């Protein structure tokens, strides 16, 4: 056996996806850290996000040596954030915008615990991500050593899977399996806890092999082989043929399975309008006729009305979350329900369904479309109805106001970007307005913390997305509350010359919380009022080396400033001071049904039907 010493040879190809052929480095002796790097390269990782520290030093050293030994085009670029939460969300932004597994590498103890939020966020939104954590040496585990944290225990309840590598001979397989687990089935985050001595230990690189997960592997294989049997297909088309007003309710599962094309094809083929969840934005082109955009708590009035009106709701990769179905019994009250989802535990979890199939959205939609080759039914009357709703109850805002309206800013931005930009957001009012007013032509272009609702997500996620999509326009639409949470990452933009455009919608406080305080707490702005804060974001950006850092507070400056901003070559920061008293509408209050939707002062509410009680423009909520 040839035992050439560790450094991976530079003349050898790195990205051999073909594991059937013998790996060119098979049989080489190398350290655990070098094996980690090699697996990252084999998995096609181009960018690694992370922050160094004592317990992960051997692997950071391996990054350095790996890149020194490889030509520039084969390097794994290392991006160092201001904090580990930042690198976790960068990995998430990388993953969300590409579908590839994002990797964040941190040290033990605080490095690991700072990563809890992004890992849980990825789990909640089903994002494939790997967290590599340094850990104290095996002998020191459990001794309250310096920078020790119980990583396995902490992450067991918020990641898809956690590995603590205690056997150095398993490091290679564990790394490969981490990728496999992160992206297979319902995707999610996988944590690999790497004791320092395991990173240092030398062994023979095999270049192939995965750990065995008997139950999981079987379940994933069974899923990949799913075939729509005739009976199930017939039952579906029976429901569709009996329906006069079918509606697709698509979620993040469509995007995660790369099923957007299949969904668009399905909707067009059968003529069924589509509403999406926040996570499903981009699954259909929002500028198209059949798109009724987002439903739910802050969904379009016409999307929610169409849910009320439909008689057959086809849920695809969506899960009747409480921001969609706050009042489960009243959700889609007139509809039979079909549910296609990759996760059996989502079927009938919230709402009983008439038809279901556990399959990934892409495969499921393709098979359904094929099975319905002969299906014929004209839904044009219902489509007309949907068009009418869209026209009558279109979004609107206070156009006559003196102060800049956030909606206006986003409407203007949309005219410039035309749905082609990748947009990341923080969490709050600006996030909802971005979901409402911006178009998204393609999937994986709206990056937002949907389930967890993590403030501070936008800036690092935009960085990850920009690095994964170097030529594209990436905009972080952020709020003043949210951006503060990871403000340190502004510096990351200039450190690396990452040309993300940061659009700060500043309403001097936590607008969404304030909105709830207006509605439910008699305007007591406990903890949310930042009107007296001294922070000067423009100066902060200048201090970080931004060459474009500007604040505007007049409506007539908005368009020109936005145009300059998005076309600026490097990182750019634009702060727009907006009206702090505006609310996001429509709004379906927490625990309320769509009949109680408040459309606000600017969007016409529907005339109440005979059996419609409540639900006027203010719904008696004030």
């Amino acid at each position, binding site marked *: 056996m040839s035992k050439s010493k560790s450094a991976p040879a530079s003349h050898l190809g790195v990205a051999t996806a073909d594991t059937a052929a013998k790996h060119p480095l098979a049989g080489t002796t190398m350290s655990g850290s070098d094996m980690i790097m090699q697996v990252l390269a084999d998995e096609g990782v181009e960018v690694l996000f992370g922050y160094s520290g004592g317990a992960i030093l051997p692997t950071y050293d391996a990054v350095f040596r790996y890149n020194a030994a490889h030509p520039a085009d084969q390097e794994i670029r290392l991006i160092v954030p201001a904090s580990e939460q930042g690198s976790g969300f960068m990995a998430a932004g990388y993953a969300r915008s590409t579908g590839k597994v994002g990797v964040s590498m941190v040290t033990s103890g605080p490095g690991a615990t700072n990563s809890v939020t992004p890992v849980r966020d990825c789990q909640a939104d089903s994002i494939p991500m790997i967290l590599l954590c340094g850990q104290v040496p095996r002998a020191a585990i459990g001794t309250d050593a310096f920078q020790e944290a119980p990583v*396995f225990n902490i992450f*067991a*309840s918020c990641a898809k899977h956690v590995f603590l590598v205690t056997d150095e001979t398993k490091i290679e397989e564990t790394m490969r399996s981490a990728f496999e687990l992160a992206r297979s089935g319902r995707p999610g985050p996988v944590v690999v806890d790497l004791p320092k001595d395991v990173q240092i230990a030398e062994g023979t690189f095999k270049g192939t092999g995965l750990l065995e997960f008997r*139950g*999981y592997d079987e379940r994933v294989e069974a899923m990949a082989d799913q075939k729509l049997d005739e009976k199930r297909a017939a039952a579906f088309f029976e429901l569709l043929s009996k329906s006069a007003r079918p509606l697709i309710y698509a979620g993040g599962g469509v995007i995660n399975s790369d099923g957007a094309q299949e969904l668009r094809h399905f909707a067009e083929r059968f003529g069924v309008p589509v509403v999406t969840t926040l996570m499903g934005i981009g699954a259909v082109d929002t500028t198209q006729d059949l798109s009724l955009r987002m439903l739910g708590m802050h969904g379009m009035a016409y999307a929610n009305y169409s849910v009320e009106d439909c008689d057959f709701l086809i849920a695809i990769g969506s899960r009747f979350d409480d921001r969609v179905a706050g009042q489960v019994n009243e959700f889609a009250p007139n509809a039979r329900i079909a549910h296609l989802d990759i996760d059996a*535990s989502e079927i009938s979890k919230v709402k009983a369904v008439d038809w279901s199939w556990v399959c990934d959205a892409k495969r499921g939609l393709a098979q359904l479309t094929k099975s319905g080759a002969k299906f014929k039914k004209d839904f044009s009357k219902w489509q007309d109805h949907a068009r009418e709703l869209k026209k009558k109850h279109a979004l609107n805002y206070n156009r006559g106001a003196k102060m800049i309206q956030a909606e206006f800013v986003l409407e203007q931005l949309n005219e410039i970007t035309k749905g082609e930009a990748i947009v990341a957001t923080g969490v709050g009012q600006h996030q909802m307005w971005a979901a409402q007013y911006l178009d998204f032509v393609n999937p994986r272009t709206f990056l937002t913390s949907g389930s967890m609702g993590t403030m501070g997500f936008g800036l690092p996620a935009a960085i990850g997305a920009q690095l994964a999509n170097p030529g594209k326009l990436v905009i972080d639409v952020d709020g003043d509350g949210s951006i503060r949470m990871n403000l340190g990452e502004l510096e990351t933009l200039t450190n690396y010359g990452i040309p993300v455009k940061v659009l700060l919608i500043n309403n001097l406080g936590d607008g969404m919380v304030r909105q709830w305080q207006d509605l439910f707490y008699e305007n007591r702005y406990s903890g949310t009022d930042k009107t007296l804060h001294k922070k000067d974001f423009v100066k902060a950006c200048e201090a970080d080396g931004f060459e474009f850092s500007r604040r505007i507070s007049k409506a007539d400056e908005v368009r020109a400033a936005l145009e300059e901003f998005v076309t600026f070559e490097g990182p750019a920061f634009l702060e727009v001071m907006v009206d702090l008293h505006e609310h996001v509408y429509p709004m379906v209050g927490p625990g309320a049904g769509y009949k109680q939707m408040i459309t606000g002062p600017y969007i016409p509410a529907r005339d109440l039907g005979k059996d419609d009680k409540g639900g006027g423009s203010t719904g008696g909520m004030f």
Partner: protein
Amino acid sequence: MSKKHRHTISILVQNEFGVLARVSGLFSGRGFNIESLSVAETIDPTVSRITLTTTGDDAVLEQINKQLNKVVSVIKVVDFRDAEAVDRELALIKVKANPEARGEIMNIADIFRAKIVDVGPTAYIIEVTGGEEKVYAMVELLRPFGILEIARTGKAALFRGSRLLTVGPAEADREKRAKEHLS
């Protein structure tokens, strides 16, 4: 919907550390108490069998079962329905045994087909195996003598008849043989 039932759940898992934490986390995260628990290797040393009992809302239990099936290290899950399985547990009971009480204690042990496994000058240790009710009844009968200490195991449960909860190709083979044997 919200009717509470006692459930006996058996879970085959990969025999590795941390699995128990993940499994029990699914119960504790929903405020469910695990009332009894047993974990041990199966005939295949790479596979462990967890058997636990819990009481709860059927709909929530169904959700927990589905969630268990998502845990990467979980191989198979079964929530035994009434009379579907045979289950047994074991208790060691240390009871005060004054000379005048010894005869009666031995009598009770005999009736329950329990064993006296340790005889001391003032106390006996009795080992009893059986269904939950039997163990409970035994405890109640011994209580008047003065129970000093008690240690109980969790349940072990198997399907009645030829049905198996097993995994893997080797196990499939065993299943086939078991079927042949039984038919």
